[in-house]
């Protein structure tokens, strides 16, 4: 999942408007930021699989994406916001952990329970529904963005350009589609 994480971030913002937007948006993508760094350092492994959805195989992502490490990264990230209050810390921590929750249906059994665990989970919609996953993620985006826009209009303390923010998320989803993605 890619753009769906940002929709989740906007939805968390709508639920907890006092939380800093940048922290929530960085939080929802933190596991993949770490993944990118770890891959460049050779700590984690990925291989490109042209013609096999989603176009790449995540061969070893235990340090960034395992269940246990997701909780660790979430707690660590939340600790930076503890001084702003428990509610904001929990919101930022949940933003990080939401990444694991949303990746689980998409990933084809490459999410370890902990680093080097023999047990890997993932529903695998990327593989079983090579096109359908994109529409399912679009549904998640629609739900998250609708909640964000409705709350933004009701409260008026955030989402000054809520529709434009949602348009950017949809654009990111289009760019990441099975038809346009760089790795496909």
């Amino acid at each position, binding site marked *: 999942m890619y753009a769906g994480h940002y929709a989740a971030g906007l939805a968390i913002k709508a639920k907890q408007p006092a939380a800093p937007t940048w922290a929530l948006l960085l939080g929802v993508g933190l596991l993949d930021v770490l*993944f*990118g760094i770890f891959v460049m350092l*050779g700590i984690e492994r990925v*291989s490109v699989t042209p013609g096999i959805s989603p176009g790449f195989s995540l061969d070893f992502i235990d340090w960034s994406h395992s269940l246990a490490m997701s909780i660790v990264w979430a707690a660590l990230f939340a600790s930076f916001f503890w001084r702003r209050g428990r509610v904001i810390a929990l919101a930022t921590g949940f933003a990080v952990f939401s990444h694991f929750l949303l990746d689980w249906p998409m990933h084809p059994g490459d999410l370890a329970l902990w680093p080097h665990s023999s047990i890997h989970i993932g529903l695998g919609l990327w593989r079983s529904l090579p096109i359908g996953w994109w529409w399912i993620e679009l549904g998640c985006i629609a739900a998250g963005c609708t909640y964000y826009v409705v709350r933004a209009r009701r409260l008026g303390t*955030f989402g000054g350009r809520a529709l434009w923010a949602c348009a950017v998320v949809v654009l990111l989803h289009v760019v990441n589609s099975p038809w346009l993605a760089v790795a496909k």
Partner: protein
Amino acid sequence: MSSFGFGLLCLISFTLPVPILAWLDRARRKR
């Protein structure tokens, strides 16, 4: 695409939209 390139693409993809979306989220000033 190399693994390094994939990692870099992932890193950029998950950082670049953050300031854009955060800016769009800012409340408009009331006149």
